């Protein structure tokens, strides 16, 4: 067990750094699309140090104080319950074999805590942002779960380990190719869960500056920045395992997750923002139909 914990910490450390760098690169890509140079790719580290270096902070109450802790704990927990590299003792983290349902539900641990913390700040924008996020989430969940269910039916398991195992043996065994419908549904849902444009109405920088984290700063901010490095990574790893054959080495994981995240980035830089009701309706149309097609496909053409 001790060894396992050590390995998990190493894995966490590596991945969180990878997340920071990736976030920097994403910012860079955004800048390049706008024909700017943009921030240095290591800017995230400086920001992190700076937020930690602030000398004062305030709190509105206990929940406010705990909100970011919940958030980051949610991110770290999600990551630690996910097996990062297939069959690796080092990067298996604290999961036995990675029950997808646990991951699916554990996402909300941090979200909920953060929402409560933001709520206690007493700032109306925080509440508005949270309601938007929750409303959009209800719609995003549907295609995502359809995809998840498709995968589970196809591989007859909810364990990430088994799902990845079933996809071994060449690129044509990936879910991406064996069942493109559910992957399409899942990847569209991913856009919603990454909260980049066109689905970033939760933060909506110019409109409700900036939604839930309006009142957060200094070390709270540091925790949230760190979470922003690990949480999308964990989600990307989940998607990679579900749809893209998992990873056999850490390098493979880095490349695949990069590709997964870039998908949301590329969509994000090219689209303006949806309003909440627009995005809800959108998710309940195309991705939903794709997801149902995927399930039908699995049920009638694969078994």
């Amino acid at each position, binding site marked *: 067990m001790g060894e396992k914990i050590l390995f998990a910490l190493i894995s966490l450390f590596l991945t969180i750094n990878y997340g920071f760098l990736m976030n920097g690169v994403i910012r860079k890509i955004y800048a390049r699309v706008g024909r*700017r140079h*943009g921030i240095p790719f290591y800017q995230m580290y400086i*920001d992190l*140090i700076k937020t930690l270096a*602030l*000398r*004062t902070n305030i709190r509105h109450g206990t929940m406010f104080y705990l909100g970011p802790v919940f958030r980051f704990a949610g991110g770290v927990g999600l990551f630690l319950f996910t097996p990062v590299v297939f069959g690796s003792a080092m990067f298996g983290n604290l999961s036995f074999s990675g029950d997808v349902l646990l991951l699916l539900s554990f996402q909300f641990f941090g979200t909920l805590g953060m929402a409560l913390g933001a709520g206690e700040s007493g700032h109306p924008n925080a509440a508005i942002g949270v309601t938007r996020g929750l409303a959009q989430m209800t719609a995003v969940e549907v295609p995502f779960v359809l995809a998840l269910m498709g995968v589970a039916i196809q591989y007859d398991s909810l364990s990430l380990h088994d799902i990845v195992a079933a996809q071994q043996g060449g690129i044509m065994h990936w879910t991406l190719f064996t069942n493109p419908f559910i992957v399409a549904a899942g990847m569209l849902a991913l856009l919603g869960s990454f909260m980049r444009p066109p689905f970033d109405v939760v933060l909506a*920088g110019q409109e409700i500056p900036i939604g839930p984290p309006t*009142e957060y700063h200094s070390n709270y901010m540091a925790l949230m920045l760190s979470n922003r490095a690990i949480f999308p990574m964990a989600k990307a790893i989940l998607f990679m395992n579900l749809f893209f054959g998992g990873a056999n080495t850490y390098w493979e994981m880095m490349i695949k997750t990069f590709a997964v995240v870039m998908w949301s980035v590329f969509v994000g830089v090219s689209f303006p923002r949806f309003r909440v009701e627009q995005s809800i309706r959108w998710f309940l149309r195309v991705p939903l139909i794709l997801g149902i097609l995927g399930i039908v496909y699995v049920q009638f053409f694969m078994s």
Partner: protein
Amino acid sequence: MSLEDLNKKQIVSPDGEHFEVDPMNDYFCQDRPEEVKPVNKIVERFYNWARSESLWILGFGTGCGAIEMRPLMTPRFDAYRFGVQWRPTPRQANLLIVSGYLSTKTLKRVIRVYEQMQNPKFVMGLGSCTINGGMYFDSYNTIKRLDYYLPVDVYVAGCMPRPEALLAGFEELKKLIKAGKAEGANEYANKFDWYKKNQKEVIRDWDMPDYNW
């Protein structure tokens, strides 16, 4: 939002109990700011480097100078290269740019915003108006020098200064921060009474607590 908001109110509780609510004391934290000294010289130098390389500007345009801040984000000037970023909320920003003339009405908002920022925080005065009133020297409604009201770290002169001048101003500010000379927040806390006196002299309907936490 008016001064009447701060009048004491007679409130009836759900159980029928009568009591008084004093908005000023009950809604706001009444404490004064305190000086927070650096912990350790070496650590502080490292921190100062990080602070200087990560200037988060509050997106708040007080006057016509705000129009000159927009080009900073464009490919032509691209202030992001220097670690300068914009934040939508004062809680997360550490650099306040007072962009041009400042009417007394706006001054009240600027003070509030400045006080809501967290301790190492910097103020940049933009344009002649913040230095000596500029072309509004005889206006009945604009302040003539900013440093009587807020601790200003850097002035960028001009009417209006171009974005290049602003970039130069950022570089100047970075040097000051790295040198540990940009301690505006602590100065504000130390000379709090003086600043408040000046502020209250021009803001005649003072309708907020002395320090907006």
